[in-house]
């Protein structure tokens, strides 16, 4: 009996432990508009915590992409944990916790450092001064959050249903769930849910559900969070001895966003994560364009050279379904979330849409 009891206890703790912790908290009711208004007024002086992301776009694994490309695509797939810290107005630090290694990006507002512990390389970026930044805050106060929330809801109403779909505990905090559901069935996105903290009104978690299937395609959120301002030494970086340091200057006056905060607008309809097609050899003059609106948006790239038949990507394409239409013919690749159509004349259509929508977009798109 004792071993059976031991197994039962261990299995019980393993299986039920998380369930008990995830019980939805009791919070006063709130309308979507009020919630959106609160989100805009959200202001924190600093936070630190651990963010976990798990992404399953159903992208096929493409072996032999090369180390650099792999490092990048690696962040688009699988599970990752990062420590984040943020202090108003412009200090931020993100450390991606890899197995026996760490990749760190940190900025104190003037300089940014990128450090890769496995390669022992540090890159220093001198950030351009951005005087426009302080003006943003007063400007933001000038408009009425309620009005903006109303406008936003009115603007996305034709395409999207917005609702407060309940409450949940995220990183030990009580949060409201704001759910955006596309009204069209032409997209592969089932819903986008934001978990919004009921005290600071900061989004704590983003979940993207595919139209089919029960597992989230993207889940990014805090697993623990603290709203006390981290010490300023958190954001400083001294390159350790024996580490190769390269210096770079940022070419444009684009300022670095505090990436630690999941921005509410990051999941606005139309924003398309995960559209990376490495190795396509896109010419600079062919600027990507967007066809279609809201959830049905399709990104069009031109001048893509199809890779030779050999090689992993070629093999992938060889297996892909061939489609034909008035627009010509091409290969279509579909995954749980992302669909891509590569036409014989070198155009690439990518979107979080169904394959049929891609073909329709191909027919409409100018050559």
């Amino acid at each position, binding site marked *: 009996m004792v071993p059976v009891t*031991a197994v039962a206890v261990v299995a019980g703790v393993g299986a039920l432990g998380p369930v008990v912790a995830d019980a939805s908290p009791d919070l006063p009711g709130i309308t979507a508009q009020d919630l959106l208004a609160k989100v805009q007024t959200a202001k924190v002086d600093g936070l630190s915590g651990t963010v976990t992301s798990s992404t399953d776009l159903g992208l096929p694994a493409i072996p032999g992409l090369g180390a650099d490309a792999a490092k990048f695509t690696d962040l688009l797939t699988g599970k990752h944990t990062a420590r984040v810290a943020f202090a108003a107005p412009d200090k931020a630090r993100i450390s991606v916790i890899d*197995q026996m*290694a760490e990749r*760190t990006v940190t900025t104190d507002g003037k300089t940014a450092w990128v450090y890769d512990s496995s390669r*022992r390389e540090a890159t220093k970026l001198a950030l351009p001064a951005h005087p426009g930044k302080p003006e943003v805050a007063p400007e933001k106060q000038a408009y009425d959050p309620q009005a903006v929330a109303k406008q936003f809801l009115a603007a996305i109403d034709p395409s999207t249903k917005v609702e407060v779909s309940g409450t949940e505990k995220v990183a030990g905090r009580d949060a409201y769930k704001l759910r955006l559901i596309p009204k069209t069935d032409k997209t592969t996105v089932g819903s986008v849910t934001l978990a919004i903290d009921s005290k600071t009104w900061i989004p704590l978690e983003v979940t993207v559900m595919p139209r089919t299937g029960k597992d989230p395609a993207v889940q990014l959120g805090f697993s623990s969070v603290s709203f006390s301002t981290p010490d300023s030494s958190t954001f400083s970086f001294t390159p350790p001895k*024996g580490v190769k340091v390269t210096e770079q200057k940022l070419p444009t006056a684009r300022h670095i966003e505090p990436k630690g905060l999941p921005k509410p607008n990051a999941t606005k309809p139309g924003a398309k994560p995960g559209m990376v097609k490495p190795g396509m050899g896109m010419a600079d003059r062919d600027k990507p364009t967007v066809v279609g609106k809201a959830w049905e948006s399709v990104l069009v790239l031109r001048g893509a050279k199809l890779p030779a038949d050999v090689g992993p990507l070629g093999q992938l394409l060889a297996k892909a379904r061939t489609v034909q239409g008035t627009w010509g013919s091409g290969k279509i690749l579909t995954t749980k979330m992302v669909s891509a159509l590569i036409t014989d004349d070198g155009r690439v259509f990518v979107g979080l849409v169904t394959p049929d929508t891609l073909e329709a977009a191909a027919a409409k798109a100018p050559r």
Partner: protein
Amino acid sequence: MAAEVVERTPVARPSAGRHTVALFASELHLVFGRARTWVLLAVLAAVPILIGVAIKLSGSSGDAEGFLGQVAGNGFFLVVASLALSLPFFLPTAVTVISGESLAGEASLGTLRNLITAPAGRSRLLAAKMVALALFCLAATMTIWVSGLIVGIVLFPVGDVVLLSGTTVSLADGLFRALGIALLIATSLLGLAGIGLFVSSLTSTPLAAMAATFCAFIVFGILGAIPQIHVIHPWLLMYGWTSFADLLRDPPYWHEIGRNLLMQGAYLAVFYAAAWARLTSRDVNG
């Protein structure tokens, strides 16, 4: 085999509670009085020497990434690199040998029969076996720690330690963290030791117990290498083994370490309970 038999004196094998200390001491004597234990520890001590000499002779760290690449610049990392490199194979092998031996060895020599004739003594006997195993795990990782430190100081410059997060801490801080790593790895081996103890309680052939335990270890490894079953990966014995490196972050990242310790505890609890059930219900002649 006969040469390795350590005499058990009747005095050191009591069945009553007040002789518990004597029982544990006898058990430790049994494990650490064996030539094979010392051979295993010597092999583990040779790991840092091997790595250190190889890096010293090649003259540079080459393009090696991670801890191994830092050894040439700072001998401290020989401690961490040796521990990390011993974890996938050398340490589990050593634990397999010792744990497979523990009960089956006694059974094969006929000494187990004497030990379990007193029913009250069986639970205590198992506890003593497990404690001896745990101490062996610790001895194994500490051997590498000490050997790595000595070889590191002899062969390479030693200085302040660069953590994974890019922060530099003093050598003392680094050594303290490395000590924590040795402790964590020793604890990580307890799940495997528990499996070995259980298998060892099933048979009276030590070699069969060792082989079966090692097979179990390899099966875990194979399961962990099949991406299609990634759902069960977090529940495999070795899933959290690499979490020891989280001690080298600034500040240390405890989440995975804690999870690994819970996992090892769970494996240990299940297999220890199974071994207990087997031993206490075992026929005296079994």
